[in-house]
Every structure is written in C-alpha cells, then in structure tokens.
C-alpha cells in the first residue's frame, strides 16, 4: 500500500491535478448505505415473475413436455415451452466467427426438441409471484430420450466420437491457425524446432472456471405499446440492445436497455443471455412487465463458464538459454453452443503466448470443441490468462531443463526497455515498459534473498514444510480494441468508445460514457479526468452511464478497455467542449481565439493577468444565449468517439512465496508481491483495488476453483459449497507496487488494469508450489492445487490427477491419472491422438 502511494507521487501530473489523486469513490455513498438499484430491486405495477424449468440431463431428445399441472398451479399465468417460442426466439448471437468455415449450430434460448447441456431451459413459468413461479417448476413433466453425453475434449475430437450436434458431423467448431512464418512476423517454426538444442514440451490443463459474480443475473422487461425497456444486470447494455433487436426483430429504436447498479461481472455478464431473450419474448407476448432473477445454483449451472483448455506447448532453445521457437496447440472447450464471443476467447489468447519474450518463431493452432456442457465465454482476462499461464509455466520448465535460474532465463529472453516499441513474433507492437525495473522492485517487496535462504534451510533440514518461490513476468494486451484489428480478426463489431459532455447552466458537468461500469469506479475516475481537463471541481462532475436512452452509444466495459478507450473518449469530448467554449470566450472577452489560453478552467488573454472567463461561466452564457458568436451554435456540449490505433500492453512481475506441507499437500501462500506497470495511474486507490481483486481470482484459479462435471454431465460443483470462491481467511496480504511507463497510444497514458492481477498471478502461484517440491521429483501439478493433488504429485508422481468425481460419477471409482507432460516434441501437436 505504501508502495502504491509512493508510486502515486511519482505521477507525471502535478500535485494540484486530480489525475493521480487517491480520490475516494463517488459511487460508494449509495452502496454502503443500501440505497442501491440492483435489477432485482425493481418492482413494477402488474409485474409477473419468470422461472425456468431446466434440463437435468446433458444430452437428450425431448420427447414430451406436459405443462398442464404447472398451468393449474396457483398463481401461474402461463407456461411456455420451446415449441411455443420456436418461431420467434431466433438464436443467441455469436459475434466472433474466428474462421470463415467455423461451425455454429445456433443457440436457441429455450430448447425445442433437444437439450445439449444440464441446465438448458426447456420451459418458462410465468406467475404472479416469485414463489408461485418457483413452485410450478416442479410440476412440469418432461420426457427425455437420452443421448450419450460428450464431455471430454480429447475424446470428442477422435474419429467416431459421439456428436454433440449430429447435423454438424463433427465436434470441432473451428480450427484456427496463426503461423508467424506465414504471417511474415517470424521465422519457420518447424525449422526452429529442428535446429534447437533443447525442446521442452508440456501438456497443461487450464481448468474450467465459473465467473461466480456475486450479484446473480436479473432482468426486468417493461413493454409499453411497441416500446420495450429492459433492465438487466449486464456489463453490456449497448451491445445487448443491438443484439436483442437482431435476435427478436424488435426495431432497435423501440428498445431501451438499462444497466442500473450492476454487480461485478468479470466477463460473466458480457453476454446476451437466453433468459434476457426469454423475458423480452414473454413480456411482448403478454404485454406485461416481467422479472427473472436467477438463484445461485442456477447461475453456477447456466451462466457461461470460462477457461477450459487443454494446452500442448513446446519451447525450443539453445543450450545457453536463448529461446528459438514456440509452438502451441490448444483444445478449447466451447461447451454446447457458441455464445457471444465463445470462439474468440482462445483466438484472443493466440497473440499472447509469446509473452514478453523474443521468440524468433511461433506457431499457434486451436481447435474449438463442442461438448455437452454450458458454453464458455469471457472470464477476466479471456484468452490472456491461459496464454500467460502456459508460457510462464514452460519458461520454468525450460529453466529446469537447462539448469538455469528461472529469472535468469527470463531476463535473457525478455524485451529490453530500450527496445520499445517492439513488434513481437505474433505481430503485436508492444508499447512501453521496463521488465527489469518491475522485477527488481517486486523482488525487493518480497524480500527475495531472505526467502531463498529460508528455502535452502528448509530443504537441507528436510522440513516437512517446504518453501518455494514462483515468478510470472507477464504482459497482456488491453484497451480493446482498434476496430480495424478487430475487423481483421472477423470480430463482429468495433472497439471504439463514445463520450459526451454536457455543460449545465449552473456550471455543473454531465459526462456521458458508453463504457458501462459495474464496480470499476468510472464515476470517480472520469470525474478526475474531466476535472483536470476542464478545470472544474471534481465534485461538479456527474458521470452518466448504463442507459441507452441516456448514453445511446457505447461498447461497454470489458478487456481492461474503459480508461484507455472510454476515458480517452471523455478527454476528446472535453477537448471539443474547450474548443467550442474558446470561440465563445473569445467573443465575450473580445479577443482573438489565438490569444486565449486555457488553464485551470479559465480562458484568459495572454499577457493580461486577472482578466478571464471560466468555462462554467461560459456554460451559463450559452444557456442564456444572449450574446454569442454568429457562426456557432449556442452550446458548448460535445460528443466524441475514440477508436484506438493500437492495444496497450500493461506488464508486471509477480512473485509468490509458497509453503507446501509435504505431509498433507496443503499449500499456503507465505508472501505475494507484485509490481505492475499500467501506465498512468488516474486513481491509485482504484488501481490497487483492481489489482487486489484480480490477484484473488487468479490465485483462486491456481488453488481453489474448478467447475467439475461428472460422467453424465452433471455439474458437481453446483453450489458455493463445492465451487470454492475463497474468503478473506483463504487469501494472503498482497504487497503491490507500480512502475509507470506511459502508454503512448492514448492521451491519458493509461494501459488498463482490470485484468492484470488475474492474468499474472496464476502461473506465479503454481510455479511457487512447484519450486517448493521440485527437488522431490514433482514437475507439474494440475490446477487447482488441491491438497490431495499436491500430496499425490509428491508421493505418487504425475500431476496429481483428476479430482475424484471429475469425469466420473463413480463415487471413489476414479483413478489417479498421471499425465504430466513429457519431453517429446510430438506431444505439442497432439501426436498422441
């Protein structure tokens, strides 16, 4: 914390600037007093409640649905099945066809004649109360004709495998390839491997996770004639509005979407949910307002999941430790359907596997695979944590193979600070940074030499509790995204952001942002930006968002894009306000525009101190409009849309010290230190908070969380009893710090911070655990590092294996698998299949 404060004072901005100040958040007032408007708080006159009858089976044909008893249930208004809605429900959109021949089976919001994952909607109850709706769910009788569930990706891609979607003829949705040699951004990968002294290959499992946002999803739809207003706990009201129009045929201008107070989504609310479509269809059909709020178990079972990749990765190097090539092949679990950006998540990661290292050659291949599970989609980091995990893990393995210090190996291969901007083998232009500086600072924070010494002592004394230190020197691409780049990747939309500034007569400022926040503190940070730019008090700025009628244009919040893209749009709008005000000021001050200077919110004529006109006064002047220049409109309000030309590349060094109890396999983080470079820090409090939260989720992937399905496709981690979101007692204190290398791609100089902690921490934690027990013969442990897996890896070899019920419903029938990677070059290309 002190470190962050120190970093804050190293800001380029002066002490009187808002940017860089640890402003307490404006948002808090309503949140700490319970005066919030969560979607589920909404009550409308005559509102009906929806509940969803869901498939208990993973794969089946629906042979009959009997809703008669449910319809008779007290308080039930009607019950609708997939048949009833088949002609109007369309398909949940997939905005990212990553290859031209990608197979998309279409995604009904409610199953018509076939279910493809446990939890898929099969009927909707509409009732007068939440209770009546819940009661009637029990009364819907559905007959299923079971089909074999497809659950394991590696089996699913074998010839003759059972198919999730018969009509596609395959379980492979797409095969995506990036080859640096072919793209002209690197050398020939196969040649690099052929020439290499050393090749290390591993198979890593990046397990399925659940975003597990705390606020359950909720949607309220109010029909008014042919207009519809939807309140939804969504990250993406703007995208949702467009998609709702496309899916349902309701004209876009007849739809208004409001994201009121929305709980943190972490990508989990970056979706067009089946239930949002269903709520809209039911409201349209009945002409009545409706509400649907999920339960937690519904949420874990049906809201999209994240990660779930089997990663085959090979690295080639010479004996001196210079990396020569990188080869990656992924199997990425799509789940049963393609949702909004399901196929794009691994593709987004494709460009990040080389990390911060100067690989001369790189090839990436990915198969998107259908299984009878809930679809995957964005979860904090979306593609980048997977890539970072794989490369940071294999760098440690290479170091072991070469007998080198893992940090030394990294240092030898990473981009030097004077080499920025640096174009990587994946074709990305990294903007700025200093990996050495961040690393040194992180080691200092950790107390590295002392811990290494303690590690040595524990090893020598054969202490049952061993200590390990793990690194992750990462970068990520943020600021999604340059629209042209997205276009080249076949993404269905742009990456720009929109902002408006409205100068009110009393001098107060309304900032409208299209980047819809859900806990990130936009109201505070945008106020800081505008206060500086317009020279108005922080308190005089109000930030409006999350309502398509108030903020009609936007691309919303995800991919650590808000400040970089949305914040820049705000600055651009402020510049336009100033430019417009300048004309009025010149008129009123009877001076030439060129002679005016604008500082501290005031226009003054150069060389005549004391004279001047504040921008807030100008706002009143144009409101009155009694006296303004002939050739301008009587307004200084302005809109701006910003489309970035490049991504931004935050980086950092994360160091984890881990204690491993070799008797029980229990792991405990002893100390965690990280230094992140996120460019300019607008609000150090918010930046620190984002890092902390990201660390918690990244550590949770390493140690606690995993969505486990049994052999029938039941999610056995169906409640918070089994899906282990860590509590305060399970997480350590974090020592965080920053270095600041301004991002050249935007005027703020910010790089984005929302995902950094989550992306960086997972491999640092796993590397630390391995470092603690490597001398006992352990070279991999499957995530999450449950005590049992750690214990098995130590005492039985392998990576600790599947968890007992994973992929099996035989209680105790599972066997321990030993699937640690072996150093065979073939394995990377799935030679075993």
């Amino acid at each position, binding site marked *: 914390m002190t470190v962050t404060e120190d970093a804050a004072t190293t800001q380029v901005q002066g002490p009187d600037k808002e940017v860089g100040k640890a402003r307490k958040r404006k948002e808090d007032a309503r949140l700490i007093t319970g005066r919030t408007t969560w979607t589920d708080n909404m009550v409308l006159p005559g509102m009906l409640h929806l509940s969803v009858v869901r498939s208990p089976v993973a794969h089946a044909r629906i042979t009959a649905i009997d809703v008669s008893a449910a319809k008779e249930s007290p308080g039930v208004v009607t019950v609708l099945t997939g048949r009833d809605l088949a002609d109007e429900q369309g398909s949940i959109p997939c905005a990212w066809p990553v290859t031209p021949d990608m197979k998309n089976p279409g995604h009904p919001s409610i199953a018509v004649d076939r279910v493809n994952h446990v939890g898929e909607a099969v009927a909707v109850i509409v009732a007068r109360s939440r209770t009546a709706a819940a009661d009637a769910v029990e009364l819907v009788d559905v007959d299923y004709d079971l089909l074999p569930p497809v659950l394991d990706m590696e089996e699913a891609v074998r010839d003759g495998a059972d198919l999730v979607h018969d009509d596609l003829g395959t379980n492979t949705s797409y095969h995506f390839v990036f080859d640096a040699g072919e793209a002209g951004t690197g050398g020939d990968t196969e040649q690099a491997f052929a020439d290499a002294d050393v090749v290390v290959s591993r198979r890593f499992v990046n397990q399925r996770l659940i975003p597990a946002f705390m606020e359950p999803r909720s949607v309220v739809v109010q029909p008014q004639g042919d207009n519809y207003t939807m309140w939804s706990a969504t990250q993406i009201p703007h995208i949702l509005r467009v998609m709702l129009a496309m899916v349902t045929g309701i004209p876009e201008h007849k739809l208004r979407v409001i994201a009121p107070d929305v709980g943190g989504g972490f990508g989990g609310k970056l979706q067009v949910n089946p239930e949002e479509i269903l709520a809209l269809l039911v409201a349209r059909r009945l002409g009545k307002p409706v509400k649907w709020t999920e339960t937690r178990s519904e949420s874990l079972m049906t809201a999209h999941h994240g990660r779930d990749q089997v990663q085959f990765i090979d690295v080639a190097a010479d004996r001196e430790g210079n990396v020569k090539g990188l080869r990656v092949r992924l199997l990425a679990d799509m789940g049963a359907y393609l949702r909004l950006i399901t196929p794009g998540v691994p593709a987004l990661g494709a460009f990040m596997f080389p990390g911060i290292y100067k690989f001369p050659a790189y090839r990436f291949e990915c198969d998107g695979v259908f299984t009878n599970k809930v679809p995957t989609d964005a979860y904090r980091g979306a593609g980048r944590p997977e890539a970072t995990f794989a490369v940071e893990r294999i760098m440690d393995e290479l170091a072991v193979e070469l007998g080198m210090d893992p940090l030394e190996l990294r240092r030898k291969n990473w981009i030097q600070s004077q080499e920025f901007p640096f174009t990587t083998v994946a074709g990305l232009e990294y903007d700025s940074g200093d990996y050495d500086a961040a690393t040194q600072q992180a080691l200092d924070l950790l107390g590295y030499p002392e811990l290494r010494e303690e590690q040595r002592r524990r090893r020598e004394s054969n202490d049952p509790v061993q200590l390990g230190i793990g690194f992750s020197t990462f970068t990520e691409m943020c600021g999604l995204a340059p629209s042209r780049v997205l276009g080249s990747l076949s993404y269905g939309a742009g990456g720009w952001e929109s902002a408006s500034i409205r100068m009110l007569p009393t001098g107060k400022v309304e900032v409208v942002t299209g980047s819809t926040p859900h806990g990130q503190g936009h109201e505070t940070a945008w106020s800081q930006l505008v206060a500086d730019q317009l020279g108005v008090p922080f308190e005089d700025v109000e930030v409006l968002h999350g309502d398509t009628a108030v903020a009609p244009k936007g691309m919303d919040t995800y991919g650590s894009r808000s400040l970089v893209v949305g914040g820049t749009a705000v600055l651009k709008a402020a510049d336009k306000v100033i430019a417009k005000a300048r004309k009025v000021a010149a008129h009123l001050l009877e001076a030439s525009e060129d002679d005016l200077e604008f500082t501290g919110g005031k226009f003054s004529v150069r060389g005549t101190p004391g004279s001047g006109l504040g921008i807030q006064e100008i706002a009143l002047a144009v409101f009155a409009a009694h006296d303004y220049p002939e050739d301008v409109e009587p307004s200084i309000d302005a809109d701006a849309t910003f489309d970035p030309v490049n991504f931004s590349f935050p980086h950092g060094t994360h160091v984890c010290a881990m204690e491993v109890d070799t008797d029980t396999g229990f792991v405990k983080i002893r100390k965690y230190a990280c230094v992140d470079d996120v460019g300019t820090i607008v609000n150090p409090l918010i930046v620190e908070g984002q890092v902390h*939260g990201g660390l918690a989720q990244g550590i949770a992937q390493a140690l606690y969380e995993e969505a486990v399905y049994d052999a029938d496709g039941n999610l056995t981690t169906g409640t918070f009893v089994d899906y282990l979101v860590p509590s305060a007692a399970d997480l350590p204190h974090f020592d965080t710090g920053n270095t600041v290398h301004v991002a050249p791609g935007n005027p703020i100089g910010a790089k984005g911070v929302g995902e950094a902690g989550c992306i960086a921490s997972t491999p640092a934690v796993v590397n630390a655990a391995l470092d603690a027990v490597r001398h006992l013969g352990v070279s991999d442990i499957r995530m999450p590092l449950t005590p049992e897996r750690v214990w098995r890896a130590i005492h039985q070899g392998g990576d600790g294996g599947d968890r007992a019920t994973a992929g099996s419903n035989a209680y105790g029938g599972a066997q321990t698998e030993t699937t640690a990677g072996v150093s065979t070059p073939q394995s990377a290309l799935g030679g075993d299949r």
Partner: protein
Amino acid sequence: MTRVSMQVDGVTYTDEVEPRTLLVHHLREALGKVGTVVGCDTSNCGACTVHLDGQAVKSCTVLAVQADGAEVTTIEGIAAPDGTLHPVQKAFHEMHGLQCGYCTPGMIMASIDLLKENPDPSDTEVREGIEGNLCRCTGYQNIVRAVQQAAGELSGSAATPETTGAQA
C-alpha cells in the same frame, strides 16, 4: 399464513407471512428493505447478513416467522438519523473496501458484529471474522484495512451507538 411482528431499523412492522418466507425475502419484498441482498442459496456468501437482536445472522437462513418479536437491523438502519455514517460504513468508503458493492451490506453488518466482540482485531482475526462473507471484487485486503480502521475509530469514540437507526 402466520402473523409476525418485528422491529426493523427502528420501525415496527406487522404482516401475514407464509411460514416458508425467508427473512431476507420478507425484508426485501414486504418491507422494501432492498439494501439487503441475496447472493446464494446455501448460506455461504453472507450478502444477506443482518443483525437479529443485535447478532449477525444470514437472513437467507432464517425464516421470517423466526424473527417474530425480534429487532432486526439492516444496512439501511446503521447510519445515524442525521445521515452520519456508521464508522464501519465510513471506513469502507475511506479504505476503498468495496467495488461493485453487492457484498458490501453483508460485509459491513458482519464487520460491525465482529468489532463488537473483538474491538481490536488483528489482520488474521478480521479475515477469520468475515470468513462467512464472500467478495469477488476486492481481494479482501481493503476490507480488512477498513475493519481495522473502523476498530480504531470505534475504540476512540465509544459513544457511537451500533444501531442508532434502530433506536430512532
């Protein structure tokens, strides 16, 4: 239906409820106390934490009928009548102990309860004291700081009543 009467944030309410009505649903849906929220269905997340006769409980795991005759304090009832924030509320704001704020009402109510029993908790004691409340945003560190800061303030100004609102 069963008649229940309870004092919530200082106001007495009498209603007919079904026995199966959970306290949190009664608070939210009958009394409009929507500051208290529901985050799970297995009593794990703690978002619904309120004080029942002065003790923190998870209101999703208490039936409304069980609170008959009881005094309930929610997040909406802990600030002073003039709007002055409770020291724990204030500390959450000052220490950036919240982001999206969904877990915050439960976190604050649990923290107040903890500080009543342990006025000067260590880092570990705070962490264990709020183990029944899940937060997905903050990584907890600033929550821990907030609770400790509030502890300092509360011990310095012992006069701050815990449930000012409830005594209005």
